[in-house]
């Protein structure tokens, strides 16, 4: 990784080489996770604050576990327990945390650019754990690693991303990552959930679900949120299920026999994915979860490297 890199804010500003290095490093981290004693002293003395202003189970726990596995000291701050409720600004909250000699701040926030805002104003490293509908780079990296492990390559794979593309930070980061690594992307969903301007994201648009299933190596399903109905993006969830739920029957009928299914979780069984598909041999959904810990270990290690190397000298 670029030795001067302080922060990991998005896939947008990562080079192909940096992505490659993160994935390779994550592979050796995964070995640690398979040992009987799953801990390494790599980040001993490094302090990490997990600052989560949006509810999260998977990502927060994944980061927390990655930090523990590498022996970092970490604290968790959620919006419900922080001073944000008392009217403190984000910058003041972050500066207070930094004042306690924290080395890395992992932040999830509902505003696009909130991690970038902090990164420009703090000496601590900032890792984006999801900023609004903008980016979710660690998710994209773990997805790329899952794909690479399965196919031994990423280049030239045909990937369909299906669901609410418009409101998905996962889709944005993943498309950028797949573009950089040379895969071919098609997005699919009802027109209200696909942005009118896809220019920044190299992809084909296909509204027809049955068509999009054909000839793909990977079907990546996104979670459909119930609120989309209230905001009139969808007439009903029932109608979404009718047209876009991946059923075992449709999978068998239209998709390639060697296709794999991915999903960032949490899944809505019976909405975007039928239970039988989620639990089938096609599914890589649980592989994504374990890979997630390894990817986060890799990122935290690479960002701390400057400091650790400097200390050892």
């Amino acid at each position: 990784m670029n030795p001067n890199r302080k922060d990991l804010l998005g896939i947008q500003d990562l080079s192909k080489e940096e992505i490659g290095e993160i994935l390779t490093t994550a592979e050796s981290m995964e070995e640690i996770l398979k040992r009987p004693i799953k801990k390494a002293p790599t980040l001993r003395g490094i302090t990490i604050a997990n600052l989560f202003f949006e509810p999260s189970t998977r990502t927060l726990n994944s980061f927390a576990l990655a930090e523990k596995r590498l022996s970092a000291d970490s604290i968790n701050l959620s919006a419900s327990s922080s001073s944000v409720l008392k009217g403190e600004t984000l910058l003041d909250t972050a500066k207070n945390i930094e004042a306690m000699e924290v080395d890395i701040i992992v932040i999830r926030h509902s505003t696009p650019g909130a991690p970038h805002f902090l990164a420009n104003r703090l000496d601590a490293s900032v890792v984006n754990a999801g900023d609004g509908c903008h980016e979710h780079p660690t998710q994209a990296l773990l997805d790329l690693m899952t794909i690479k492990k399965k196919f031994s390559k990423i280049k030239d794979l045909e990937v369909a991303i299906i669901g609410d593309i418009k409101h998905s930070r996962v889709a944005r980061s993943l498309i950028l990552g797949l573009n950089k690594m040379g895969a071919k992307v098609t997005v699919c969903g009802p027109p209200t959930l696909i942005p009118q301007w896809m220019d920044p994201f190299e992809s084909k648009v296909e509204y027809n679900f049955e068509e999009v299933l054909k000839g793909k190596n990977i079907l990546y399903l996104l979670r459909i949120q119930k609120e989309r109905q209230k905001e009139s993006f969808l007439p009903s969830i029932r109608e979404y299920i009718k047209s876009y739920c991946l059923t075992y029957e449709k999978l068998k009928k239209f998709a390639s026999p060697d296709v794999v299914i991915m999903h960032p979780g949490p899944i809505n069984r019976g909405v975007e994915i039928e239970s039988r598909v989620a639990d089938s041999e096609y599914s890589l959904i649980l592989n994504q979860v374990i890979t997630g810990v390894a990817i986060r270990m890799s990122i935290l290690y690479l960002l701390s490297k400057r400091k650790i190397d400097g200390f050892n000298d």
Partner: protein
Amino acid sequence: MDLTIKQPHLFDPANGVDEIGDLHIKDGRVVTNSSASSEKEIDARGLYLLPGLVDIHSHFREPGMEDAETLETGSMAALKGGYTAVAVMPNTNPPIDNEGVAKFIKEKSEEIGLCRVFPIGTITKGRKGKELSEMIHLYEAGCVGFSDDGNCVEDSSVMRNALEYSQLFDVPIIDHPEDTTLSRNGQMNEGVVSTELGFKGIPDVSESSMVARDILLSRFTKGRLHLAHISTEDSVHYLKDWKTDRITAEVTPHHLLLTEDEVKTFDTNTKMKPPLRKKSDLEVLQKALKEGIIDAVATDHAPHPDYMKEQEYTIAPFGVIGLETAFSVLYTNLVISGKLSLAQLVKSMSFQPARILNLPFGEVRDGGIADFTLIDLDGEWKVDPSNFASKSKNSSFIGWELKGIVTYTIVNGNLTFREGEFLKS
């Protein structure tokens, strides 16, 4: 004589004045052919003397939000930018929806004695868009126009009635054209960049559709309509095709010079309403100003304190300041580059906005009101927030290198700004 300005380049596009000569002022008016000597003289060789600039769209935040700006700091910012008259929007707290607040603003600014400040009254009580304000009371208290600025009058019947009732005095109804059912929760222009950044967008149609409606209502009622801060290509098209002599429009310096690409920095000084649009919109706006489809440049000077702007993009308030940079950013980037003539720029910043509000300013002529700006067009400066006279520093042009330094500002024949110093009359 009270004051003689020696040998400036007199420049008044409205009267075709473009020559070097002395200018004499007595009792706040221009006097020609005087042989009497003056008490005071300004050596203005090498400076341009322009009609004092007139801003028809500013926010001075007083009463109610004095930590952002006051009538005094706003007036200072105006003078420093070459403005001698400013119309202030009524989204104060309380709003200018009664004659008490209007009178407070007029009287307090007169007491401050720096620049002329004119209140704009609300169209509806509390800017709520439901019941018309007491426009006769507001007019008599000195309001020069009516606007619910920041809030579009979305109820078309209310807008129709406002356009009819205001014909009692022939002052403009100034609408902020925005269909909020389309722009709700939007943070920036909807398009390529909002898609990339994951922001909810403010589509251009949320403005253009209201511009079309407002124009149609003005044509229907014959009411005087002024459209605030036009920002889209379609708005310009509707104006071009359907404008009447009862309709005028303004554009801001930031919409003439900046695009949505600026938002990629997540700098909240790129957040304003209407939002920065695409490059093609910007080009259409520049051309429309040149061709007179858009009548005036207005700053939409919208001060916000640092602690409010130094926040997450979605939480930070909309708006940027503009009085101190407006002339120089446009002179440097449109006039020097040849996209607009100096005459067109000066007219759109003085004579034209004055006429929209029926104010007798914007000219350099015998017997005319002595409101002037003396500018060193070759003077170079860099926009540095620590030098702003405004109480707030939220400018979109921080760090820009500009040409055109306001050296003196004269209001009603009195020198109120001299080389960085404010002089109360």
